[in-house]
């Protein structure tokens, strides 16, 4: 009998079983149930329609409204008002309704995401928490209603595949380039219904904040979840975010055992990526897996550049972009938008002087959240416009007009493209910047 994979160990523990294998159907208890301003209202409506009256475990619920806030219109304001009232009535204290930021960045930042947890979020990018060794699984709103009512949910145990990153990255290589390189191999459904383990020596070259970018896009490979094995960097990240210090002792997550990876656990398939051979990458419209070298697209004129999202809206991303933008102006015809993912990041960027760098370069700074990514509000694209975005999806029509063209890239490519006014490989500019005295 082979050992259990990381995700199998988490699901076995959460479902009270000694052992589970891929294909088993289990009823698992969620360590945390989450939703946002878009998915929570429908979940609450279904909860009420079913005749449920009490949330099973309000201490294990986390809802953040980061898509619309500040509200776009009366209808979206009404939706969030409804969620706020529900949370107040049910004793859900972890509700963040206005400007605190968006769930996938806020929850880890607050220290409520811990390794080994099973986190069920009514949002597809639940896999982001995998960078901390938590198993984040996305659900729809009715599943979330069920989770609110009973604290548990049925799931099929996924098979596990692996993406291994090896080698030392070049100066202009970010984790976005790593995950886009992986997307090029897996396609948009290579990991459908499966769990992805991201491993390899190259991961140690990147901070935890940078690793979130990789875990975040597991869903773009079709996966149910994605995980990385927690290491010393994760431990340090967690130490700095002791949850009781942020939200009170009663809110500290229930400690869960952290799985031990076993070498003989069944891995259905492995993709290997040589990081040392990578150049900065871009995914072309309208598929996140249509990946090409950034410099192959020079000459493609850009109208808008977005830096932000649950993929690349953290401090490390803003720092990388600011490194290139400092002391420079973006091209006249370009609109540059920076959207810090949380209020904490906004504040830190202010303290570090990054917001001044962006403003001086000609950027607009959005309130914390992720409004532009799916065209919720702020920063929609007009017909035929070209956008470079540090987001995770470039589906047709997602950011505005159906004829707009969205290219996905990391913060360095985005900043370099804003400066050049066309899609640009940041390598030369970065070398020039690093060589120059500050």
């Amino acid at each position, binding site marked *: 009998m082979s050992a259990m994979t990381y995700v199998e160990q988490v699901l076995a523990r959460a479902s009270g079983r000694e052992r589970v294998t891929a294909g088993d*159907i289990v009823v698992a208890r969620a360590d945390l149930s989450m939703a946002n301003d*878009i*998915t929570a*209202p*429908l979940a609450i*409506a*279904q909860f009420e*329609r*079913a*005749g*449920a009256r009490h949330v099973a475990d309000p201490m294990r619920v986390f809802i953040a409204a980061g898509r619309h806030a500040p509200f776009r*219109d009366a*209808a*979206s304001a*009404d*939706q969030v008002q409804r969620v706020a009232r529900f949370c107040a009535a049910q004793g859900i204290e972890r509700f963040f309704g206005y400007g605190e930021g968006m769930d996938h960045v806020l929850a880890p930042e607050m220290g409520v995401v811990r390794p080994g947890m099973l986190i069920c979020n*009514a*949002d*597809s990018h639940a896999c982001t928490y995998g960078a901390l060794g938590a198993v984040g699984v*996305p*659900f*729809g*709103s*009715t*599943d979330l*209603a*069920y989770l609110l*009512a*009973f604290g548990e949910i*049925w799931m*099929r145990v996924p098979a596990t595949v692996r993406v291994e990153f090896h080698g030392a990255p070049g100066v202009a290589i970010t984790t976005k380039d790593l995950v886009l390189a992986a997307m090029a191999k897996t396609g*948009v*459904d290579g990991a*459908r*219904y499966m769990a992805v383990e991201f491993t390899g020596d190259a991961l140690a070259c990147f901070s935890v904040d940078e690793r979130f970018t990789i875990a975040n896009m597991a869903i773009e490979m*079709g996966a*149910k979840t994605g995980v990385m094995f927690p290491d010393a960097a994760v431990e340090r990240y967690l130490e700095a975010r002791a949850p009781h210090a942020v939200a009170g002792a009663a809110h500290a997550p229930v400690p869960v055992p952290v799985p031990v990876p076993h070498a003989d656990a069944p891995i259905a398939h492995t993709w290997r990526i040589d990081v040392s051979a990578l150049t900065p990458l871009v995914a072309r419209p309208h*598929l996140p897996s249509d990946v090409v070298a950034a410099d192959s697209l020079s000459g493609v004129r850009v109208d808008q550049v977005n830096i932000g999202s649950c993929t690349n809206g953290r401090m490390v991303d803003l720092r990388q972009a600011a490194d290139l933008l400092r002391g420079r102006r973006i091209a006249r015809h370009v609109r540059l938008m920076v959207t810090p993912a949380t209020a904490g990041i906004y504040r830190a960027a202010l303290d570090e002087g990054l917001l001044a760098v962006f403003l001086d370069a000609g950027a607009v700074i959005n309130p914390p959240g992720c409004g532009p990514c*799916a*065209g*919720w509000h702020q920063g929609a694209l007009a017909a035929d416009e070209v956008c470079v975005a540090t987001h995770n*999806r470039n*589906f*047709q*029509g*997602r950011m505005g007009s*159906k004829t707009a063209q969205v290219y996905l890239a990391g913060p360095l490519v985005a900043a370099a493209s804003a400066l050049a006014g066309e899609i640009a490989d940041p390598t030369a500019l970065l070398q020039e910047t690093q060589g120059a005295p500050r």
Partner: protein
Amino acid sequence: MKVLGRVRRFGDNIDTDAILPSRHMVTGDPQVLGRACFGDLLPDFAASVAPGDVLVAGENFGCGSSREHAPLALQGCGIACVVAASFSRIFFRSAVNLGLPVAECAPLAQRAREGDAIEIDLEAGTATLAGQAFPIAALPPQVLDILRAGGLVRVMTQRLQAGSGVPP
């Protein structure tokens, strides 16, 4: 659980942004959402659906955003069942939870053309397209139970009533 209808043909990787653009997600009313179904890419689609139409698509149907408003919109505009070569996981669950039948059948998805007559029998695990029968992937019993009940909300109600001692 039988569905009898007409094929509406779609391709691979149909994402939930395409099925229901984000700006419409300020309501959970299936009728209102139904009118916006595929609204940006295929503005005439919603009005052209006859109740009972069966959406037949290729690989990875419903990929992307977890928005349950997408299957709700399909239901709202009159789609009775979705058949695809494969589904994205969240869409599949959400459709089942809403009581919208879904069936995985790659050979049928390859063969079907717009307007073909189609019949799906989920319990029997067969689909018939223009007289030819295809086996559909068996659904786990948990999934069939939810569909039989008419969706997860009904299952919740049953469990709540059983728990509180009130007969269902």
